[in-house]
């Protein structure tokens, strides 16, 4: 008899694009596996934590799912994951990786298939260091993920800071920050501004005439929003554990079939959804969630072909993987990314030591 997967993700409202990509990537992998014994119950959390909690209750109490996945945002993850795993469910995160869940609050049934939140920022710091930047201006919204971002960057960067700014969450006008950047004498800019905030910043930054190099995590340069940023993003270096040109057969097939199926290029989030599903399928080959210990061991083995190439879990069930530096380019009419180097190799995270199951 089959297994039931509960997916809670954001499908309506402002941040819906990410959830839709995760879902589409995930479902593509399920379809490709040819297995029809995997039932996926998909729910829309509307990006509201209390709704997510309620949906988790529903999936666990009435749908009686075996495995959960899908959450995009850290704050929703914090609301749902601890109580779900405490009730004996497995949770495979396709996106959010808050630091608590990687360290002190880790759990043996919680696996993160994307990254620990700091990872891409650390990679950006490492890239900045490698590129010889010594005076960065850094900026993120004033909320926990923003604080983590700046901490992550500083962890690897080691140079001086020309300025450090926390912006308002949801801010759309960056004229004053840009003026501060211009006046700061910085040699580079690092920013973490997910979603619309990043689009606004990049457009305004490009229009300001400042020519300092910019580094950021992949979130503001992902396939879904690059088209909206346009020329302003060209040439910007960003860090990501995945890109469509990573050279391995799984990835090539993924990019091709995703495009064929959904008529758009896959994004980072789609790849994460796809990998999450494949991890699950690989584990199901050897064990059933009913036998929690065996199933957990199967997950830990991570015996699947990742779109990222090598993929392994660290001791805290978070990825150990390469993180690349990419550059935004234009291919024909389409803005996309090209890998220009590896920023961090076989990187795990800073919190693993705090984790004991």
């Amino acid at each position, binding site marked *: 008899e089959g297994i039931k997967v509960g997916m809670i993700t954001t499908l*309506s409202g402002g941040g819906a694009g990410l959830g839709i990509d995760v879902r589409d990537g995930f479902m593509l992998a399920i379809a490709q596996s040819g297995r029809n014994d995997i039932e996926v119950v998909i*729910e*829309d959390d509307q990006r*509201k934590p209390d709704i997510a909690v309620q949906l988790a209750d529903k999936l666990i*109490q*009435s749908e009686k799912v075996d495995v959960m996945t899908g959450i995009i945002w850290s704050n929703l993850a914090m*609301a749902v994951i601890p109580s779900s795993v405490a009730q004996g469910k497995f949770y495979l995160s396709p996106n959010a990786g808050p630091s608590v869940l990687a360290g002190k609050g880790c759990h043996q049934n919680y696996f993160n298939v994307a990254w620990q939140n700091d990872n891409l920022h650390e990679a950006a710091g490492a890239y900045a260091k490698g590129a010889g930047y010594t005076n960065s201006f850094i900026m993120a919204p004033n909320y*926990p993920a923003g604080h983590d971002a700046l901490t992550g960057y500083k962890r690897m960067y080691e140079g001086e800071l020309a300025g450090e700014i926390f912006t308002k969450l949801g801010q759309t006008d960056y004229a004053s920050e840009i003026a501060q950047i211009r006046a700061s004498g910085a040699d580079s800019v690092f920013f973490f501004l997910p979603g619309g905030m990043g689009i606004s910043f990049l457009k305004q930054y490009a229009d300001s005439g400042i020519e300092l190099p910019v580094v950021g995590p992949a979130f503001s340069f992902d396939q879904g929003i690059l088209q909206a940023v346009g020329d302003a993003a060209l040439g910007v270096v960003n860090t990501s554990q995945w890109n469509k040109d990573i050279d391995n057969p799984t990835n090539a097939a993924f990019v091709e079939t995703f495009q064929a199926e959904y008529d758009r290029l896959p994004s980072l989030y789609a790849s994460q959804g796809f990998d999450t599903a494949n991890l699950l399928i690989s584990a199901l080959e050897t064990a059933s969630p009913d036998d929690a210990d065996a199933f957990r061991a199967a997950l830990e083995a991570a015996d699947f072909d990742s779109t990222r190439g090598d993929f392994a879990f660290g001791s805290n069930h978070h990825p150990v993987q390469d993180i690349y530096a990419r550059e935004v380019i234009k291919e024909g009419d389409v803005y996309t990314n090209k890998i220009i180097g590896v920023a961090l190799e076989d990187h795990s995270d800073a919190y693993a030591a705090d984790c004991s199951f």
Partner: protein
Amino acid sequence: MIRERHLNALVLLLLFAVPLWAFFNDAPFTITLATRAVIFALAAVGLNIALGLGGLVSFGHAVFFGIGGYSMGILAHHAQTYTPLMEAPFLIEGTKSMPVIWLVAMVTSAFAALLIGLLSLRTAGVYFIMITLAFGQMFYFFSISWAAYGGEDGLSVYVRNGFPGVNTLVPINFFVICFVILCLVVLLNTLIAKSPFGLALSAARQVPQRVQTVGLDPNRLKLVAFVISGVITGLAGALFADLNRFVSPTMFSWQMSGEIMIFIILGGVARLCGPIIGAVTFVMLEHFLGGLSEYWHIYLGVLLLIIVLFARGGLVGLITGREVAHD
């Protein structure tokens, strides 16, 4: 057409019967859903005291909902991490006891309502709506950046708090607790509406200058109504946090204030059970439409529109017909 009094009884009865049915048929999620509806209804009944009786359209009631939520979150967080809330000048420990948490939630909400009310009541009408919104936004942004308690990530509490003599982990038990509180508050609301205070408040809403010339202070009447209202919504916030075992700044958001208000409008302003019917309807719509399509908000929007356009006086108005004179 049925009489409003009968409708009220029917609503409360159904609201109790459905989870009971779910309990015997092993449908725990239905109970969770009903609990959610009951708690929202409680928050809305609270707001309705200010809004329906006192004419105070508060677009900032999420403040009290959030304060209630964080009262629970902070106390339980300290209890579960065994860290004291405060050491100097005297020791305050966290707690996992619902009654204590409720008391704290209600007292803090009362203080906040007193303060916000004092300042906001200088204004009237739309300005009142907006100044209460402003207070809501202040609390929201503050909670987002309050790192000690999780900031935007919020606070998780792993085990539901306890109530003496009741196993709150059993969904139906927690439901009953919430339901009893709702009934008590509805009773309180009925009494207030018919009381001398209620009469004076209603007049203060309509003709403040008249109230003054009979020697009463309309603003003080409204302030008291606002505080009572805030206290009830605060209590609802504490219960909501306990239902989710989680609090976050979204409890303070303007959307939350808006939703509480929408429950009332949907059900019927100044109707005893308006907020309850509104909250239940909204929760059900959200639940049943949510699965229909990615674009289910469109259906929700259209349904709400139909209700506003064709049901004067909200759903209660639709069911009971024209409002009858108070007896």
